[in-house]
């Protein structure tokens, strides 16, 4: 584990991604302290306060209801992050389970599960999500569940291939040879070695979930009782921000989404580079160590 953090510290893109995510997290946690106004507070709207330009009072301007965009933005991070974390948790649990079972047992089970995965994979996510959310009540819970149960296919395939490669290793054969039950082997020998990759994958799935949530909200299928970044975009778009030239109503949530998705992607890829030895080989530090043990390696292969 210590090695892992050391490797991460050397991965500049991963560190940048981690910082980006942590900053967003801090902003969401301390929203009440950071936001100049409370978005839930009722305010009296005057004509001047609708789509007011950025000013000292409202650094990011105001929206169609005369509310402070900066405050909405800060509180909106909470919704986006909540959806991202919980939806990706659902995805990774489903995908991980399917991937592990499929890779470990192989044969007919594998065939069945992978065909099912392929079917889910080819159905376009967003239209199906739109239909599902529209059929159920568009609450935050429903959005999380819908995004979660549509986003697991990538995880399933990744975990399956990793499971297959771990399964082929000799210590698994050795465990079989001492008479260990298949489920015991799965739990004690395969899962712990697949887990790091699953965690790395989770970070990438979070970014997908956030994007999906934004898209749903933008299409008007967000939870009306909460205000996510996607919804801010939706309101600005449908309520005349464009025609009145109020770019500030779009800029902050748009950049927020890009920022968070980029942060997750960088960190997730950083994790995968560290965990996946094939991508790791370009790492200078590692190649030096190999050079030092050159003759070791060379004999070990003989």
């Amino acid at each position: 584990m210590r090695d892992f953090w050391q490797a991460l510290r050397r991965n500049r893109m991963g560190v940048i991604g981690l910082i980006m995510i942590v900053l967003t997290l801090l902003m969401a946690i301390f929203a009440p302290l950071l936001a100049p106004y409370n978005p839930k507070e009722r305010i009296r709207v005057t004509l001047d306060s609708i789509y007011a330009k950025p000013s000292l009072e409202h650094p990011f301007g105001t929206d169609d209801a005369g509310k402070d965009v900066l405050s909405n933005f800060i509180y909106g991070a909470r919704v986006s992050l909540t959806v991202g974390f919980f939806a990706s948790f659902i995805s990774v649990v489903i995908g991980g389970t399917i991937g592990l079972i499929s890779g470990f047992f192989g044969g007919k089970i594998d065939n069945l599960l992978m065909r099912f995965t392929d079917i889910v994979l080819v159905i376009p996510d967003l239209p199906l999500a739109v239909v599902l959310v529209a059929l159920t009540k568009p609450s935050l819970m429903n959005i999380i569940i819908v995004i979660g149960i549509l986003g697991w296919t990538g995880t399933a395939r990744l975990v399956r291939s990793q499971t297959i490669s771990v399964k082929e290793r000799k210590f698994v054969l050795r465990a079989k040879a001492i008479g260990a039950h298949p489920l015991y082997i799965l739990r004690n020998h395969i899962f712990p070695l697949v887990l790091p990759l699953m965690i790395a994958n989770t970070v990438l799935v979070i970014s997908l979930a956030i994007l999906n949530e934004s898209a749903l909200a933008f299409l008007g299928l967000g939870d009306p009782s909460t205000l996510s970044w996607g919804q801010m975009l939706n309101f600005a778009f449908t309520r005349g921000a464009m025609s009145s030239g109020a770019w500030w109503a779009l800029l902050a949530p748009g950049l927020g989404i890009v920022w968070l998705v980029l942060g997750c992607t960088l960190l997730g890829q950083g994790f995968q580079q560290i965990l996946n030895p094939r991508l790791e080989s370009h790492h200078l530090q590692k190649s030096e160590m190999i050079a030092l043990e050159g003759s070791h390696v060379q004999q070990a292969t003989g």
Partner: protein
Amino acid sequence: MSNKQQANLLEVRGLTVDYLTEKAKARALENVSFKVAQGSILGIVGESGCGKTTLMLALLRLLPQAGRIVAGEVLFNGRDLLRLSENDMRSLRWQDLAIIFQGAMNALNPVKTVEDQITEVLLRQNPNKTSAAKRVDELLEMVGIGRNRKGQYPHQFSGGMRQRAMIAMALACNPKLVIADEPTTALDVMVQAQILELLLQLRAELDLTILLVTHDLGVVAEVCDTALVMYGGVIAEHAPIDAIFNAPSHPYTQALLGAFPDHTKPKTQLLSIPGYPPKLDALPPGCRFAPRCSQVIDICQLKTPSLIKVSDGFASCHLLETL
């Protein structure tokens, strides 16, 4: 003088190599000196981490980035290879010095036919395509690959055939010196015998000088004329193989022979060497073999022994100095 230079195709003097890592400097080779006579086969033997691969790479100036040659001379036909420009060295590498790597599968390009790969080497030296094509046929015949198989890809070859293709490639430009790094390690004994026989036959036909890097003492005894036994980055013993195998001077050579299986002596006890080979970043003070040596005396832990002349060759051991 000129007479002597003809006798020794390669002379290495005081070669010292360091590996630099973030934290420390590891000495991979220390003060390695030896001569190789024209037309002879020198076996370089030792266990993991003894520096035999580093030595081979240093001679070719192909050390990995972290490796540095900090001292020494490598005289090839009287020219110091370490002073050549990178360009001169590169052209020398295929023309005069050739390499046969261990894993032929990794050393060959998987997406090119064997014929194309050998042609590529030839064209680099001489851009005449018809003469190159003729030479490819000649080379393949020399190493025993049927003409009908030259258009095939490496994965269609067996391990032995791939190693033959590697040898053909190495011989493409009529090198004088061939450095073979564990050329038979991954092969079955029967295929190993075929390849070793091929090397011996080529040596006789082409008057090749061969450096054979291996961990297998049996292979050394079968094909080499002299042997260099390495331990922890230094030469333990360098002598003609009769001396190495029948009257070894260095305690490490003696111990290694006791540990090596020999099917002509069934049911005899194999003798192990206690402990483990030293790691390059944690070398013991004094003689590097001292911690595992059964004949260790006080001075061994204090002072590094130097390579001295013994009856038929050279060895670095304090016991031999006091005699």
